[in-house]
């Protein structure tokens, strides 16, 4: 089977047709892949090079922890890849959403709808774990929605602020 993978903006086409062989971007390697009894741990021998990784499916990505670093890998099989291509779906979505990374209380909202912000600007101050945490704009753009206010209690992953990609893009967004 063919898989299309993407990690840190790098693409790899991977063919898995045999148990002991894998082809990556046209190059074939001998492999031995084992999943260990301990949840999430895998061992891979690839041309006898040994790699251990913790691998876990989380949302729409596979998280791989290797040598201390965490990689978020998007894996699509041929069918879903083709479907996505045909629909012209971009993988970029929600890039301008600022969500609460943890439950807490909103201390301040230093931006309002219509403000032009740059990536890294403070948009929310959230108190949680007894600390004031600054949530910053994930990209340059214009604030198109502010869905909270100082004093509000918020849940993890609650949408707080939406920043549109470009200045001209201000439009009414459909409520989820």
């Amino acid at each position, binding site marked *: *089977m063919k898989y299309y993978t993407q990690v840190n903006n790098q693409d790899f086409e991977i063919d898995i047709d045999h148990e002991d062989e894998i082809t990556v971007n046209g190059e074939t390697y001998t492999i031995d892949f084992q999943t260990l009894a301990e949840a999430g741990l895998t061992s891979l021998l690839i041309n006898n090079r040994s790699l251990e990784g913790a691998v876990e499916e989380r949302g729409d990505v596979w998280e*791989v922890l290797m040598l201390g670093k965490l990689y978020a890998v998007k894996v699509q*099989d041929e069918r879903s890849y083709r479907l996505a291509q045909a629909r012209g779906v971009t993988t970029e979505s929600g890039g301008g959403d600022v969500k609460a990374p943890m439950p807490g209380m909103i201390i301040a909202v230093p931006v309002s709808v219509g403000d032009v912000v740059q990536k890294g600007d403070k948009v929310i101050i959230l108190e949680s774990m007894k600390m004031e945490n600054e949530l910053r704009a994930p990209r340059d753009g214009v604030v198109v929605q502010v869905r909270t206010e100082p004093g509000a209690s918020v849940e993890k992953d609650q949408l707080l602020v939406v920043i549109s990609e470009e200045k001209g893009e201000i439009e009414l967004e459909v409520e989820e």
Partner: protein
Amino acid sequence: MKREDGLLTQKFDKLLIANRGEIAMRILRACHELGIQTVAVYSDADRNAPHVRYANEAYNIGPAPARESYLVMDKLIEVAKRSGAQAIHPGYGFLAERAEFAQKCVDNDIVFVGPPARAIAIMGDKQEARQTVKAAGVPIVPGTEPGLNDEEMVAAADNIGYPLLVKAVAGGGGKGMRPVHRAEDLPDAIAAARREALAAFGDDVVYLEKMITEARHIEIQLLADSHGNTIYLGERECSLQRRHQKLIEESPSFVVDEDLRRRMGEVAVAAAEAVHYANAGTIEFLVDKDKNFYFLEMNTRLQVEHPVTELVTGIDIVQEMLRVARGRKLRFTQEDVTLKGWAIECRINAEDPYNNYLPSTGTITTVRVPTGPGVRVDTGVFPGYEITPFYDSMISKLICYGETRGEVVLRMRRALQEYRIMGVKTNIPFHQIMVESHRFLTGQFDTSFVETRFSMDEDDGETHEMEAAILAALAAHKQGLHASQIVAPGERDTSNWKWLSRWERLRR
């Protein structure tokens, strides 16, 4: 022996641990090594925690929020009495530095494994602490008295000079503290510090203090018995901090030589003796670039980073705490204490270093700790453990030891690579980049380094995108085959497309 300042020492063979997490485990281990029975307490969130499972007895003390469980003094005293525990070890955080709790223990004839209540009270009040140690000849940082109103502080600030710090009288761990570099920022900083201090400690009294720039945070570990003996166990270098939260600690320090160590040690002993201190404690100093040192505060408890001192001195600090609380004399004199080798501790936190170090909540799914020569991991988490906003975000302390600093740095690098934690984001990548950085390797850093001159973009280490993609694809492939086999055993000739659609239906 019972003293008027709230110190009770007597023999005990059963001890209640008024804490949770890694420090509860640390205390429990010391107790079991000394043949002391242990009583754990736990909130509703911690039923499955290791400190509950490893203790001899365990008692539920209420709901997950600490103020309804671990902070309720009367519940802890009640459990101690019910279980027959004759002593309480508070660990760090929670009730460790509450004089009222220490006094309550003593009033109930329970040994509080820590200093006398009076010493906690004096050192817990930053202003009284400054005055007390100043009178004992200890150098302090210039600043204002507490209790001034905003206008008076603004006026006083010009005399102290910028940069300066706004600090909460009741503060600690960086809460209620604000650095100010320009006069026009002072009013906002005072307001923010007051707000944070009021929320965290119920007290909005703040004061100003001169900020020592290019300062290192170096602290001296002390041990004192109830017979008038106080010794220092060398220093810990704790300059690598972010928002006043320590991230990496080591012992010894790059900048402390034999002479400075002795001078700081003697001053620290004098500060402790000024409050008739007993048990373990730590004097924190700021050391400027000319190696002048100033008293910052005294932590009247066991510290998170105590293991680095244990490794270079060979002294088990928690066991010594238990011994002196039983009324015994210290087993060491100052001459017995020598530092050998080098130890570094990395605090592994559930936070995302690539996203402004935001805390990462969630359930830990996989944990495998590094082991092998010179590696120690103090932790209280396990697969299934949930990182919640109720408690702090520390997952563990990874401590390495080596003959030389070079050896311990290489060992730490190896141990960080071996560590596997899944389910939440951790700051392991931060530590990996830090221990590889030129400034860390050459010891050229101060307390502002992490915030002002360190960047995660400095990572020039190898990345393994292709290998990660391969592992993910293989795992996805294997999961697909496995799922389709469950749906349709014996339909081996069915096309892959059918398997796939069945698998997808199953997972919906």
